[in-house]
């Protein structure tokens, strides 16, 4: 039952990253590449009717984490207190940037909310990458100082950084050079993903330029992925042991690289949705490969005193997990229906939706 909910949770998170990922990416494109009012309109039209529903995947994933793995929810949310609060603030800024921009027609007003939307999208992409980095790197569970736990074995607290920015320090911070590397990968990957969404859903003049951007950023992404694989052993001495033990798991890295190499063909794609498909594959594969590499750990311990958190020692009781399957099955079918309706109504190009016009 724990494994079932683990797969559900990871799938939901992957869906979240793919869906809200294109929103963040569109925000980054908006920040750096959309100069003309027409281009900005095209971008907000392409995400306007969707972003709110996309964000629900984060809230729903949080809900599933809370109910199926309450100990992990409690430990990680209190331990990652500061970055989570900042993510909340950024989500608020991003949402009001999007929603309020069109309410007043004034140049200063519009440029303030354009920047709020763009910059918070950029920082959110960075933070989510850093968050993934923190999970795989592990944390000092129990807050061990000089071989003695200062908290219960499954609690911890991380400041934003420690002065050394080293992922191997005894007292870790949220941001070190390893988590920052994953953060930058997040920004580059989501920028590509957002560009692909805009190409897919609009007839904007930007599209030709964005194809070049995707191609060039994809080279950067490939290099960053190689660098991260080369340094991965620093946080995990045997980084690929899960893949050697269970060859079936190779499916995830294969998906990742299919997405990554597929994107190099972006300029030749006849169908506008193909680029989006490949960047979705990359994001899905990248996230699943990363969590598969530490499976069954969900939050590793960096000290030898307190044990890792695994999906088995953080789960809720059996009865609750079983009864949840019934309502979840009904709910997920409904969610599928809503999504089909939503994307059917807003199918094709969305340049004329009129989002944010009042």
């Amino acid at each position: 039952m724990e494994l079932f909910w683990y797969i559900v949770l990871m799938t939901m998170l992957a869906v979240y990253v793919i869906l809200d990922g294109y929103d963040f990416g569109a925000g980054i494109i908006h920040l750096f590449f959309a100069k003309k009012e027409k281009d900005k309109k095209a971008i907000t039209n392409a995400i306007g009717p969707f972003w709110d529903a996309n964000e629900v995947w984060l809230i729903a994933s949080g809900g599933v984490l809370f109910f199926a793995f309450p100990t992990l929810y409690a430990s990680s949310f209190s331990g990652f207190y500061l970055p989570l609060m900042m993510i909340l603030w950024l989500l608020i800024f991003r949402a009001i940037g999007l929603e309020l921009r069109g309410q007043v027609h004034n140049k200063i007003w519009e440029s303030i909310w354009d920047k709020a939307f763009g910059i918070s999208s950029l920082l959110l992409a960075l933070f989510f990458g850093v968050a993934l980095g923190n999970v795989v790197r592990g944390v000092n569970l129990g807050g061990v100082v000089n071989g003695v736990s200062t908290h219960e074995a499954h609690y911890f607290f991380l400041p934003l950084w420690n002065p050394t920015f080293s992922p191997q320090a005894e007292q870790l911070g949220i941001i070190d050079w390893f988590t920052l590397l994953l953060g930058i990968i997040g920004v580059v990957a989501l920028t590509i993903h957002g560009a692909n969404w805009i190409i897919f859903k609009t007839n904007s003049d930007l599209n030709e330029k964005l194809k070049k951007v995707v191609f060039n950023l994809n080279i950067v992404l490939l290099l960053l992925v190689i660098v991260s694989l080369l340094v991965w052993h620093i946080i995990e001495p045997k980084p690929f042991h899960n893949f050697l033990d269970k060859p079936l798991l190779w499916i995830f890295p294969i998906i990742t690289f299919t997405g990554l190499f597929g994107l190099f063909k972006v300029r030749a794609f006849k169908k506008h949705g193909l680029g989006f498909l490949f960047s979705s594959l990359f994001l899905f594969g990248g996230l699943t490969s990363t969590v598969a590499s530490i499976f069954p750990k969900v939050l590793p311990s960096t000290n030898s005193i307190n044990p890792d958190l695994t999906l088995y020692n953080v789960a809720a009781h059996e009865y609750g997990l079983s009864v949840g399957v019934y309502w979840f099955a009904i709910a997920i079918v409904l969610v599928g229906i809503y999504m089909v309706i939503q994307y059917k109504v807003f199918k094709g190009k969305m340049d004329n939706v009129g989002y944010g016009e009042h």
Partner: protein
Amino acid sequence: MEDMLFYDRMQFAFTITFHYLFPQLTMGLSLMIVYFKWKFLRSKIEKYNDAAKFWMKIFALNFAMGVVTGIPMEFQFGTNWAKFSELTGGIIGQTLAMEGMFSFFLESSFLGLFLFGEKLLGHKLHFITGFLVFLGSWASGYLIIATHSWMQYPVGYEILENGKFVLTNFGALFSNPWLLPSYLHNQAASLVTSSFVVAAIGAFYLLNNKHHDFGKLFVKTGVVFGLISSLLVAFPTGDLAAKNVVKYQPVTFAAMEGIFETEEGGSEIVLIGQPNVLEKKLDNKIAVPNILSFLTYQKWDAQIKGLNEFDEKDYPTNIPGLYYAYHIMVGLGTIFIGLMLLASIQLFRKKLYKTKWILWSLMFMLPFPYIANTTGWYTAELGRQPWLVYNLLHTAKGASPTVSSGNTLFTLLGFIGLYLLLGLLFLMLAGKIINKGPQLNQH
């Protein structure tokens, strides 16, 4: 340690108070928009569709504020109340996860269609998307109050040796006797807010001699919905909710009503008076004998336990706060019924639109349903303190063990700053929409 708990509580109280200003309007307003749209479909009179469109703008703004301030609520269970989440997550996580899966997806998927899809969908389908948004928001309220009810009156659980609460009966979460009265009370109160807002904006237009037709429509609709919902808040929903408190939290009831001593011949109802907890009395009290006994048990001489019958360690933490919250709510609720009755009589006599003092009262009444709703929630929450899970889990034992008071104060200040900005922007934009008013024949 004490500081830490204080800031954790302040942050939750501040963020939830601010958050709930928006859903209390949108839950009721969604029903009223569906009503306008339904009237349009039946009568084909454009005015109703234009009214629905106008309120959808207000709705969209409020909904966006509700969403962005709602996400921090779910996060805070884990960030600030980690111990509580760890111990009870297997139970309250169920209802909270269900809220995300059943109502947020429904609301958010159809909100986009509702706001941008009128041309694409046609009026009938557009009406249905509106109805689904309404359904989603009311389902959300239901699941939140199911969670709240479990904290007030825990059911269907077992406590393990390690202190963890384990769910043993899923159905019990929904057959909880606390749930239905609280839910109906809350939804009726949400309709009070939306009715008063609709009526107040209508009165504003009439007094201003602007948008005359819409002014009349809004005042009339607001007054009719307002009278029904104000009555429903008091009876039967408020009555049933209060009876639950008497039955399951008698010490809370005594503190709420300000009864320090049991009265043998039946309890009086306190209208005015400041609780003096040290001397166990009310200063300059005005009270009506025997009414409380009658309201509670329908017997003039029924005995109601005063605070003197309970151990002091079982007292609610903040007796004066609880007493005021409750009395403000009840006092305002009574005024709402009175005003809406008068307005309804004038409406029936076809004189309402010319009765200036009622229009002025309706307009100035706008903030008060928000205060009544907020103090109503304070009554429920302060009434439960010092417990997170009534009689089972102490609030002090639920806070996050590793988050220092300095970090919580930092984020609390951040929230205060950010929400002040949000509040200002909201008022400015709502003012702009209201001042511009409904647009005729926008097609």
